[in-house]
């Protein structure tokens, strides 16, 4: 991999050059929190942000998007709205880049999703490293570093950003700046290693994910699920803010006064009461406890069976967003805890 360095004070210059590759979006402060948003000027970007309210999935799987328009006599015409828009998404943390790599697996395969794929092709990713806070557990989820899925990734090494060039597009961005980027030397690499070590020690949270699928199977009847079901409001906030939750609903809308219309898809959540409801009235996950159990089960057990790793990246958003304080790390800890039944 091509590795270069960029003097920190040159970052704004880089940002202005890179805009020729697309519309620049980055984390911006909004009411004391952060959101990914189109920049009107570079100074708005807050690269020291902790986490955005919504993850970058909103760019690739928009909360609501038109799949088809249909007209009598013409059938279903695929929509291309917004698919060709070029965007530079600046300042993604490793966990968020990792989450896109996970979504890539879901939206690829035999039935590749052309809407997601088009957006993924047209949106460039520039990552930046971060310092874990009290809610981060990406290290436990093996998502504290990414080796692919970005065009460029910047590591803070004091006076410089060390830049990993991930794609040919990333390389073009570097070249477009002329000689803004420099070669790295041994001291830079040492500085990177020192900081990597410090980052590792900065985590407050740690969960063990090895054999977690087995423990989920063993604790399938645990009373914890009933307790969580009683607490959970089924608001679906955790799904909306989750960078890897991809469930969606599809619906047809007819235009008033005509027989034409459109087919749209929108974000959905397995916590919603009708997620597994069929027309006959049968609901395969009716009780709230079974819905919240399913969400944990699918992330930490189901996804491992399907794709070889949990779909959780440890970004901490669900814990931040939950109005009743359901904490994924606490749930896993509790499932792993030895009950000490023998001494009771």
């Amino acid at each position, binding site marked *: 991999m091509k590795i270069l360095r960029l003097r920190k004070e040159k970052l704004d210059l880089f940002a202005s050059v890179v805009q020729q590759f697309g519309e620049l979006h980055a984390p911006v402060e909004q009411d004391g929190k952060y959101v990914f948003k189109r920049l009107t000027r570079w100074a708005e970007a807050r690269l020291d942000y902790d986490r955005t309210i919504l993850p970058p999935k909103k760019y690739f799987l928009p909360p609501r998007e038109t*799949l*088809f328009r*249909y007209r*009598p*006599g*013409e*059938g*279903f*015409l*695929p929509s291309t709205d917004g698919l060709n828009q070029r965007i530079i998404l600046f300042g993604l943390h490793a966990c968020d880049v990792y989450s896109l790599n996970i979504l890539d697996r*879901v*939206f690829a*395969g*035999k*039935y*590749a*999703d*052309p809407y997601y794929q088009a957006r993924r092709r047209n949106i460039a990713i520039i990552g930046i490293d971060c310092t874990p806070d009290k809610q981060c557990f990406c290290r436990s989820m093996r998502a504290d570093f990414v080796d692919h899925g970005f065009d460029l990734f910047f590591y803070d090494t004091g006076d410089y950003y060390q830049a990993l060039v991930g794609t040919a597009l990333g390389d073009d961005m570097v070249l477009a700046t002329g000689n803004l980027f420099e070669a790295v030397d041994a001291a830079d690499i040492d500085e990177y290693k020192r900081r990597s070590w410090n980052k590792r020690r900065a985590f407050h949270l740690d969960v063990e994910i090895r054999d977690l699928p087995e423990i989920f199977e063993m604790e*399938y009847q645990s009373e914890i699920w009933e307790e969580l079901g009683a607490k959970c409001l089924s608001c679906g906030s955790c799904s909306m803010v989750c960078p890897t939750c*991809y*469930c*969606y*609903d*599809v*619906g*047809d809308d*007819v235009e008033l006064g005509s*027989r034409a*219309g459109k*087919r749209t*898809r929108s974000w*959905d959540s*397995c916590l919603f009461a*009708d*997620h*597994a*409801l*069929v*027309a*006959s009235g*049968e609901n*395969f*996950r009716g009780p709230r406890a*079974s819905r919240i159990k*399913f969400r944990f*089960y*699918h992330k930490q*057990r*189901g*996804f*491992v*069976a*399907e794709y070889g790793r949990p779909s959780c990246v440890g970004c901490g958003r669900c814990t931040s967003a939950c109005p009743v304080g359901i904490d994924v790390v606490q749930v896993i800890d509790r499932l792993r805890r030895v009950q000490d039944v023998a001494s009771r």
Partner: protein
Amino acid sequence: MLLVDDVATYQPIVSGNPYQPHMARIVRIYKMVENNHLFTLRFLEDNLAHTFRHQPGQFIMLSVPGAGEIPISISSSPSRPEVLELCVRRVGRVTQALYRLHTNDVVGVRGPYGNGYPIPEMQGNDLLLAAGGLGMAPLRSLLWYALDHRDKFNNIILMYGTKRPEDMLFREELLALVDRTDMNCLLTVDADPAGTWKNHVGLLPTLFDYAKIEPLHTYASVCGPPVVYKFILQRLLELGFPKNRILMSLERRMKCGIGKCGHCSVGYKYTCLQGPIFTYWDAINLPEMI
């Protein structure tokens, strides 16, 4: 709702879009049973009509423009191509809209999806098909596939039960099978108040008394409402069926049919990709399956 007059200008959209519905004409609506009509469809694109092939047990995503898209199992056998037969119960919003359509109206179809029955494994074995009520819809595809490739299978037994004679789906064609000597077609009704039913009367499991079954050389395909699974599975296990020789066809809410939308997941599998045909062993291992 599209009318046939509008169809002439239709241009098939050639793309790699897996969500693309292909328009199909309703060529026949047969009112088999009240609110359980059989819809026969043919693709408008001739090429697609000729080349569309499915496996018994697979399903399609059916679009009723303006109402939505739903998964429907294919009731016709791939050995009888060119048209698709769908047995649809009027039960939800989209099926209500489908029931408002007429012959020559146009709907959208994409697929086929799902794994279908494991035909290569089943070949050379006895087949036991056990269905209750609407469960006959997916099994009929397998039934006619087996009868049309009769030499590929050993004994074929069909057990089908409904509440009353007038509830029996595909009644005429199934009654015609009773006389066939190369299969054992057992039909029963829970009750026959009118006294006109010439076949068995009694609950579905009573049909086991009329069938010779060798569990180790048989694949049992079961489909029906939960009560059917409960009693038939219990009976099959008592007979000594290995759990991977019991095949079940599941229904779930689906929005995509291709493993993306998340609705049809059972445990860690998707009904649309790894199903809808699951073995009883899968069912034991996947929570909330039945």
